[in-house]
């Protein structure tokens, strides 16, 4: 986990998509949002979840690892950058490699699009646009100490599991205290969900698109 980074707390998210609109205001990709906002409990509750680039750490971000053009730069502060437009060949390898489903391809430009943690803002000491505008603090930018000072007792994890693959990330999620001992389950095609919002699911199996199998 980076020093100053994003923390995602889906429990605070109200699904308003201010992060999505805020992301569109960024000068490096005006009009285009790099953020995904999902309603993962469709039909049962209004729960919502923002997905930003997790800026994977271990061993190297998968998107950068698979890039045949070596277009995806990782700076020493751990930020995984958008593919360099002078190198990117628009091949979509990164789209397929990302376990969180973050990068997109701009079809017209044939270039990859991805969150760079608002490098233009963070390098000036500002927070990324999404965490600046998030009405609820579901997206928080700062250090773990700053987060815990504002929200006493909160626990976070940057350790995720996709089937047999585990990965640590630069961006962290707020999780219940008992979830810090094990990796947070990611979203592979079949994921047994035990509970949703405190309700037992009876072990139903849910596809990664959110529909029941």
């Amino acid at each position, binding site marked *: 986990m980076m020093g100053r980074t994003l923390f995602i707390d889906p429990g605070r998210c109200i699904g308003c998509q*201010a992060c999505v609109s805020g992301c569109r205001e960024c*000068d490096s990709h005006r009009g285009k949002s790099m953020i995904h906002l999902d309603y993962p409990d469709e039909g049962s509750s209004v729960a919502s979840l923002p997905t930003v680039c997790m800026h994977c750490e271990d061993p190297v971000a998968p998107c950068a690892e698979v890039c045949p053009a070596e277009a995806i730069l990782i700076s020493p502060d751990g930020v995984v950058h958008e593919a360099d437009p002078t190198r990117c060949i628009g091949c979509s390898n990164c789209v397929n490699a990302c376990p969180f489903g973050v990068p997109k391809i701009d079809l017209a430009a044939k270039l990859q699009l991805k969150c760079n943690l608002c490098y233009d803002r963070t390098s000036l000491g500002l927070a990324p646009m999404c965490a600046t505008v998030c009405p609820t603090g579901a997206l928080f930018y700062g250090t773990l100490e700053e987060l815990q000072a504002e929200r006493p007792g909160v626990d976070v994890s940057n350790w995720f599991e996709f089937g047999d693959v585990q990965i640590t990330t630069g961006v962290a999620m707020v999780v219940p205290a008992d979830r810090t001992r094990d990796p947070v389950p990611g979203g592979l095609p079949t994921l047994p969900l035990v509970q949703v919002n405190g309700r037992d699911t009876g072990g139903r199996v849910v596809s990664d698109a959110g529909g029941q199998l």
Partner: protein
Amino acid sequence: MSRAVGPVPVSLDPSVAPPGTRNFRDAGGIPADQWHANQVKQTLVPTHCCFCGVQCGMYLRVDERGKVFGVEPRNHDINRSRLCPKGLNAYQQVNHPDRLTAPLLRRSRDEPFREASWEEALDFTAAEVRRIQTAYGRDAFGLLGGASLFSEKTYLVGKFARVALKTRHVDYNGRLCMVSAAGANKLAFGIDRAANPFADILQTDCLLIAGSNVGECFPVMTQYLWGARDRGAKLIVVDPRETAVARTADIHVALRSGTDAAFFNSVLHVVIREGLTDDAFLAEHTTGWDELRATVAEYPPKLAAEICGIPDVQIEQVARMFGTAKKAMAWHARGIEHHTQGVENCLTVINLCTATGNLGRPGAGYGTITGQGNGQGGREHGQKSDLLPGGRSIANPEHRRWISEFWGIDEAELPQAGTSMMEMVWQMQRQEIRGLIGICNNPFVSLPNYAVVKDGYDTLDFHAQFDFFLSETAANAHVVFPVTTWAEDEGVMANAEARVVKHNKAQEPPPGVRTDTWVMCELARRLGAADKFDFAGSREVFDELRAASAGSVNDYYGITYERLEQTGGIAWPCPDLDHPGTPRLFEGGLTYHPDQKVHLQTVEWHPPADRFDEQYPMRLTTGRTVAHFLSGNQTRRLGALVEQTPRPWVELHPSHGYRNGDPVRVTTRRGSEVLPALVTEAIRPDHVFIPYHWPFPTSANALTIDALDPRSKIPEYKVCACRIDSAPAVDPVPAPPMPPGRSAYPEAQASRDDPLPPSSPQGRGTGEVR
């Protein structure tokens, strides 16, 4: 379904290029993604959002040509840089291609509009006013204002009606919004505003939110809710729907819409039974306690639980949680106010706070969350039918004398109180009102029972409307005056905390556009009142407003533009230039009644106006969604917001057997329309919900009932009787109206024909594949 619109001829497969990657036009008039930071030198103009009553601070980004082209978060202490999607996209209205830039005129509704000169449009309007008033009397001409106007303009609306038109018929769209809370506050406290600032929420131990979808209607206020919980506060939410703030609340009371008074009476019943009242506070600071105690004795939890459709134990839980908290707070909004007993519902909440001694302390108190940006300020300075500037009463001889002298008119000339907005529409139908000017409102979407509203406006001999986009109501008028957006003029608004904030001018209006102030002054001049409307702009109007409010309860005298710019906002009352303002009311338990006590009021619950029977067994309730604002005239033209929530839906419980997206016909005694079903367990099985931002034939308000609260005259938007049936196809969402020869900016409308409901009430998920 096809979504490809615009200059890029590629398939916009949402799995590759999700919504939001489209080339939205930004305020600079170019597609948003063709703009780059290195092309422009920018200035940041500090101002506030034009939308809801939270009034978040923001900077508008202005380029070197002096055009607004973006937004930058502003660390104002209301919002701490936070903004909701509406606020983030608000700037796109300013240089939007749909803007009106010339007056529109027609002599009869059969003709199409033609563009006219300002001279011709103003002269024609003044001539029509004179003609109608000469033939049918002064009161045959009406004026309807709005609470998204700056306070200066709301002051002018009231003065224009009373001094230039000399008509009693003036009212405003806050009548559809804030008046129930206002009525209750006046009765109980002798002052009409929220009692505590938002920041007090952070210090509470128990927060009760009644009838407010805070997460969608006041998104940035959510930070105060979560902040209180971070510090250990309990959260109680009273709402028939499991909203984003109800979802994780400690107690979510999913009561039937229209039963709030029974619920709160019963909570107070249990509070008394369990000895949780603050008897010292009641003895020292209240009147009417014995009567109130006797009334709520008739509301045991078993009875109330049956009325409300909730477990009786939940009433006891709420009473204990609220009653045992050291510092408790209650905030409410339209959910309990939009009822035929809206005032009484608010009084039951006030009774609960007062009986537990929760008033006038940090973390302990009472608030009402204004819906419109200037919902608070808009009702204070004289555009409400019964009020004069400074919240003075038009029925009070002393107040009448004072303001007549102030305005330099003969008191006999000052009209008496008029009627409310909905009543004015009924009077239009009866031809008691034959001419109307509407400023900053869109009743064709926002008033209940659309058929009646349309008929009333169609019956008018003459109708003029001020707006910057052609609203559904303006499209039906004879004259439309193109006026400024909030970013093209300066002025103040008072937010939900009664904090007066200053909006600054960020750019010159487009050629052909004038300020509302200029148009009202020009009309007044033509009506022979030039000397009373000699204002160069907002600054001069504000100075008169300050003086007009001096000595009243709503005292603005000590508030100046300079002080607002220095402080970031001052809460009234602020009687002199050294006064710090009054963020928190009722400190020491003292109210604004002459005896300084809280006047407790008894309330008996009664059922909603619409009858439930076998034909109409279900409850229809209406409300907002996060991406749109009020009648949608502003937000239904902004690409990002249309993309997020392209169309209305009917939200219903899975027990009715419909699948998501099924066309469902909702029928009430007023009308019927077909909307796609959003099937969710997050709503009571006996309720359906429709968001109200869209026009006929997809308008929630074509179904709602025009029954009014007898005191506040607020319509009962939040509950009426309906039934649901399956239907072959959903009704299409109409494009926003445009003058002849122009069509609404197509890229912003690209998703409007989506026949499906959003993924969730907050909008379409960005990654969904359809």
